[in-house]
């Protein structure tokens, strides 16, 4: 198991330079007060993980990994563990930088605000990735790009349609009591989401043939 994770982490290693440049850019922009680009690092997570699938696919690692001991299970598990590790590391870096920037700029750190923003970012990053992984495992990374595009496009159209003809404010009102538990709910949803996605991917990969 640990070997598979090491392989996925080693693939991230080749992106370290780019991550470094983005962190520096993020700090400079933040200190100048020009623009908040805190989204850039989580966005990088998504890009790095998707490109790792492309590299795997290009050299047919998936088929090779199956011929290793317990390969079918471990290669999927390691992708999810690496994703969580990368998202957490990147989030911690972003939190630290946010603290530094807000301390230098306004000398007043709003801990809660930063924390909630961060949690939201982790949620969003994992949402995108865990949504994509089963599709990638099912259709391969190339076809998955198109599938994801179609799904997002479909959702936007359906969402647009509903918001025009149906008043959804009652949902927001009836859910407002949950606001106090927002953080816990967000964490629980994230865990559930990652777990469900993992189980689906594992099932798809356990039947996959190359």
């Amino acid at each position, binding site marked *: *198991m*640990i*070997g*598979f*994770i*090491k*392989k996925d982490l*080693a*693939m991230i*290693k*080749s992106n370290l330079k780019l991550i470094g440049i983005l962190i520096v850019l993020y700090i400079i922009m933040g200190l100048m007060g020009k623009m908040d680009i805190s989204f850039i690092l989580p966005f990088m997570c998504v890009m790095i993980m998707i490109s*790792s699938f492309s*590299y*795997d696919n*290009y*050299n*047919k*690692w998936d*088929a*090779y990994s*199956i*011929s*290793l*001991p*317990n*390969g*079918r299970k471990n290669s999927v598990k390691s992708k999810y563990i690496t994703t969580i590790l990368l998202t957490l590391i990147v989030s911690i870096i972003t939190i630290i930088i946010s603290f530094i920037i807000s301390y230098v700029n306004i000398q007043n750190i709003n801990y809660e605000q930063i924390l909630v923003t961060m949690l939201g970012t982790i949620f969003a990053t994992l949402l995108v990735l865990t949504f994509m992984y089963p599709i990638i495992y099912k259709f391969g990374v190339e076809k998955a790009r198109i599938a994801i595009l179609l799904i997002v496009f479909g959702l936007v159209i359906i969402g647009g349609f509903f918001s025009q003809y149906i008043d959804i404010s009652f949902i927001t009102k009836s859910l407002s009591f949950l606001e106090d538990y927002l953080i816990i709910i967000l964490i629980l949803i994230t865990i559930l989401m990652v777990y469900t996605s993992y189980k689906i991917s594992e099932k798809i990969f356990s*039947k996959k*043939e*190359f």
Partner: protein
Amino acid sequence: MENILEIKNLCKKYDNFELKNISFTLPKGMIMGFIGENGAGKTTTIKAILDIIKSYRGEIKIFGLDNRKDERKIKEDIGIVLDDMFFPEILTPNDINNTMKGIYKNWDTKMFYDYLKEFSLLPNKQIKTFSKGMRKKLEIITALSHHPKLLILDEPTSGLDPVARAEIIKIFQNFIEKDDCSILLSSHITTDLEHIADYITFINNGEIVLSKTTNELLVKYGIVKCTEKEFKGIDKKDYIKYKKTKYEYEVLVPNKKEFRTKYNISIIDKITLDDLMVLMIKGEK
């Protein structure tokens, strides 16, 4: 003799291709050359052995264990080189070592680095900077460095120049001398196999055509070269296939000695695996 690999009635159906009742056994300590033209079913058979394809019928036993039920245990002791399948090319040999250390219980870091040094492969260079021959060597080194009891090699020499091919065959030979290991080696470059294989299994169009010791094949089998008149005098059951060339008939016979005593035809050549493949595939009965 203990069998390392046993395949019984393996069947797998695709839209345009089918594996039909593949059965053969590989005894311990032996090298089996698995030959056949491109698309004959060599890689599909190997993929079934390794569980890369799942929906097949039949029984596959490795080290006497079921290849699916005892998958983990079995794969600890198998080394593999697969055609075109390997680590992502942005990784380095160092990364492969770190990965494999966490995958195989018996991974031998020293052996891996000794091999890298022997074949002048730099440990910190990305795989994509390596030539095709270097890459293949790295794949083979990776397959050998956990002291496997069975090596499964799918076309390890294809696309390589003769020098690189000879080097790679030498790696296998040295390895067999040191470790007590069995090898299933698929190839369509049959000259490589004549020197090292103890057994030859020949697959054609999804079916096993023959599975025999190399010695039996090369010593017993022969190619009779004769005229049309002579050919017409040969009993159908005394030959396997024949081919008509511009000037003569080439007839594949399973037993040169017996043939000589029965017929008065003097030209019986030794066969090479290439001749055998061509006659079996293109010849008529």
